[in-house]
């Protein structure tokens, strides 16, 4: 296991929530999982009718409708509720936050940096849908959850935001944005779901001494 870390900034050492987990895959390609570390993320809230134009100017892409995502270059915008978007940056979020803050300064809105709040699990493969379906009551069928769909979801006892980036002959590609403290639990739950298709079992971190 890669027990340390990835990224350093000015001598500081960062550690991602799943730094102790290596990417895993089923031997026959049924599914694969890996942590996408240190993506920039922020929450944008506002009335789309009022901030839409300015947001589009800053992000380069129109705010998507609830439950859908939009991609422009290295930025992905997930509409997670009627007045809320989760913006994912393939790198630090500062630039996008600053650009957006500048454009929205006169309008009622909220921007909250959540780059370190969530980490991202990339789940892909022909069995990816089946694996998620086991642990969610939401319908994950290809007719019901189409590429470009996203939203908050309950997976077992964790509530990540998931996004379906694509679904082609190689299977579906999901990004699962999960709170730091739930990441290890969810990683193991999803891996367990894929056990019957050859994904290696993952044991949750455990063994802490408890005082009663």
């Amino acid at each position, binding site marked *: 296991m890669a027990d340390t870390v990835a*990224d350093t*900034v*000015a*001598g*500081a*050492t*960062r*550690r*991602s*929530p799943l730094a102790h987990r290596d990417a895993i895959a089923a031997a026959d390609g049924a599914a694969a999982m890996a942590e996408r570390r*240190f993506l920039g993320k922020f*929450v944008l*809230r*506002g009335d789309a009718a009022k901030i839409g134009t300015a947001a589009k100017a800053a992000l380069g892409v129109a705010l998507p409708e609830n439950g859908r995502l939009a991609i422009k270059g290295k930025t992905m915008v997930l509409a997670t509720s009627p*007045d*809320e978007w989760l913006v994912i940056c393939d790198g630090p979020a500062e630039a996008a936050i600053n650009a957006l803050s500048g454009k929205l300064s006169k309008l*009622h*809105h*909220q*921007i*909250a*940096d*959540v*780059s*370190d*709040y*969530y980490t991202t699990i990339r789940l892909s493969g022909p069995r990816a849908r089946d694996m998620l*379906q*086991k*642990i*969610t*009551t939401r*319908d*994950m*069928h290809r*007719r*019901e959850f189409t590429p470009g769909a996203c939203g908050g979801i309950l997976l*077992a*006892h964790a509530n990540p935001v998931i996004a379906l980036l694509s679904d082609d002959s190689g299977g579906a590609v999901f990004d699962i944005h999960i*709170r*730091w*403290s*739930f990441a*290890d*639990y*969810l990683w*193991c*739950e999803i891996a*367990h779901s894929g*056990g*019957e298709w*050859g994904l290696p079992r993952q*044991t*949750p*971190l*455990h063994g*802490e*001494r*408890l*005082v009663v």
Partner: protein
Amino acid sequence: MSANNRLESGGIVDRTRPVGFTFAGKHYTGFAGDTIASAMLAAGDMLVARSFKYHRPRGVTGLGSEDPAALVQTGAGDVTIPNVLATEQEIHDGLVAHPQNCFPALGFDIGALNDVFARFLPAGFYYKTFMGPPLSWMRFEPFIRAAAGLGKAPESPDPDAYESVNAHCDVLVVGAGPAGLSAALAAARAGARVILCEETATVGGRLSAVTPGSTSITGRAAMDWANGVAAELAAMEDVRLLTRTTAFGYYGENLVGLIERVADHLPAGLREPDRPRQRVWRVRASQVVLATGAIERLMVFNGNDRPGVMLAGAVSGYLHRYGVIAGRNAVVFTNNDSAWQTAFDLKAAGGHVAAIVDTRRSVAPGLLAAAAEAGIPIHAGSAIVDTDGRLRIKSVTIRGFDGTALSGPERVIECDLLAVSGGWNPNVALFAQSRGKLRWDDGIQSFRPGMSWQGERSAGAADGDFTLSGSLAGGGRAGAEAARAAGFTASAPRAPKAQSANIETLAIEPAWEIPSGRPAHRHKAFVDLQDDVKSSDLKLAVREGYRSVEHAKRFTTQGMGTDQGKISNVNAFGILARQLGVAIPEVGVTTFRQPFKPVTFGALGGQHVGLNFMPRRTTPMHEWHRRNNATFEPVGDWLRARAYPKAGESFHEAVQRETRAARTACGLLDASTLGKIDVRGRDAREFLDRVYTNGWKKLVPGRCRYGLMLGEDGMVIDDGVTACIADDHFHMTTTTGGAARVLTQLEDYLQTEWPDLEVYLTSTTEQWAVSAVCGPNARAVVGQVVSGIDLDEEKLPFMGFADGTVDGVPVRVFRISFTGESSYEINIPATYGLWLWEKVLAAGKAHGITPYGTEAMHVLRAEKGFIIVGQETDGTMTPFDLSMGWIVNMKKPDFIGRRSLMRADTVREDRKQLVGLLTEDPAFVLMEGAHVIETAEEPAPPVPMLGHVTSSYFSPNLNRSIAMAVVKAGNARKGEMLYVSRAGAPPVPVTVTGTDFLAEGGFVHG
């Protein structure tokens, strides 16, 4: 007894694969595809179990899940499963099964003495002991528990793995007989997503229980057709065909629970390690087709429970499905046409049929002629009044019967098998669970689906149509209808052309109970074979006044247990109706409840057990806590470091050391778990003014304020410090456990109560890792680590905050204190949390920095008299009760809970109020939760209680015990002596004080 009752050919078992197993210590060999029951019958063995109450011998009665009593226990040690139906469990190499509820052996069971003393264990025995004089149930229970009951529960954790999963579909079809297969095919061809579940291992339903060649569909043998349809379905992308899968529960909004027996039929060596033993499917179906077939009824007559008495349809089933002839010399007893087929089947298979006894006086001429041709003696207008044979039936006694009275002489007919049919009940369990309304049908003398409530429809025998062509047509129609209702285009397919040479008529004449002419105490006519309910018990219930069918059920236990009265309930209704002198529809039915048959708890829990039971939330610094020997405390979902005992140090000693260090030198706490909410918008101040009790209008950027949050009832629900980042931007903190609840509640207020306020909220709890440095040396330590902040007390005073950097990484430092000490909470983006923590520790080394856990934190805050919401409060404490009136600004126009603080009850002076308690003996630490009383001696109960201890610790800094308590009129009692009661010891004298023990005790920093 041992015989070979396996026919030369026939059945859908795999005769090339012999399989060995043991039951009751005896080795059996069957074929792959056999059940325990079919393999035992093949060997000529009938005795399987002992009944629940009287320990009467029980044999195989049915063919599958309808069997009432053929329960066995499989496995051994931890890997043991009780109440397994021998008629369902497929055999596999290495299978070991044991009889249940018998001692010392199945053939000789001491518990059978209950049978001898049956007159002293009448119906209603349990009911009366429950309801009887005090202690009567207590007295009887140990004996009853030992004597009655079914299997034994395993005593250690279940080593098997299970899965509990979700699924969606457009059309769920339950049952893969001719109707279900037709329905699934029609729906799937329309493009619908279909789940087809079948309880047994193979598709075809009753098609595999009739003479091969006696039926044909589209010109092919019926089973070939069935397998062809299954193959077509299995090849379709959006169809899931689940065999060995029972729909056990129909719930609201078309949620149907399925239990799939994934590996029960496999020997241990062939079970795939990555697949569960069983799996529960929670299926949300747009539409449902119930093709669950029909269940045959027993007849109720004296001596009807001997091993060897079987349902006629089951006898035919064993013959054709397994190639097993259950008896070589059979008697058939019926009130309808269907059992005649069994007689003909037995004869055709080379068996001898000693008689067909039919309660009807007129039988269709075609049947009479066929029986005569087969050389089977016919006794129409006759009934069985007695049977003989201890562990297996030897003979029956018959007399003339006109539907009510017996006539003529008794006549004994020898036999080793009695095939009985009392008619067929459409299997309406799921339909009734779905809230569908049943309707009585005189034609079949049973209940069938009437009005649907949810999106479902029944087809085939489940709908009361017992013909092959009708089932095929009805199934296709239902499948197409379901697909249409789910939004697809489908017209009812043309039903495949079907031919059946089997008897498909019923012509039933009810005979709910056959008299015997015996004295009452010798008339043992069983209705419920599992719970040992006799017809006389049901009549007793009516005589005792239990006239409602639900009450009669509870009085007699009719229809309870693992079988839920599948073959017996309608007979019971018939007997009750006759006793009450009303028609059966007026009696009604007992409620059909989930589950249809027992479901293992393990399967319901699924994979969410053990280490996967719940998320264990941990902070970015968790790894360090583990490395440094922390013991942990569960706080909500979180695991927080509670103390860091050093080698040779006890937990208590560690807490004392940490507490002392934090107040006298420097302490470091992982405070990352506190809830954090970003509050943004023009009206943020107004919003805070409404949600907190104090004023927020004047808080300037760069400053923080503590706030109390109340419920509408005026009671404290949360507290925390909120910082003003800008006029329209605040950083709110909540308690660790309250984070999610508070955000939900505040969002609710914004969306529903105050939509006019321009405020947005976003949780940022885990964006930040928090290293909280406190104590006299805190500033020196923080100064070494953080750049860009002037830590001068004037520039960054208590309740101020500032932004700075640590090695270029931005941080925000709050001067917030939960200890009463000078304190700096350094917030850093979480991925840097561990790095910063270690950096602070390194910098603090020269300053005696000591990491402390939540227990020391509790002691420190208690020394200062700070409350913990949820410990000092319990949903009944107002701010005034906590002596925190200073934080309530009643002059504000409104805040949540304000009005309630003016109610007569909340302004009472004698409410329970938070006070400090100091024991006479400074070394004595009170027990948290202990009651506070007024007298030095504890009076006889009921003891007048003044309140209870909420927090209690030994304070190393004050070198004495300290405690907080809520006490009636506590504020007025300061200085008084009260007492804290103890179990088994005299109450402890205490002095009532204020809660700031540092001030009370005159603590000065050394």
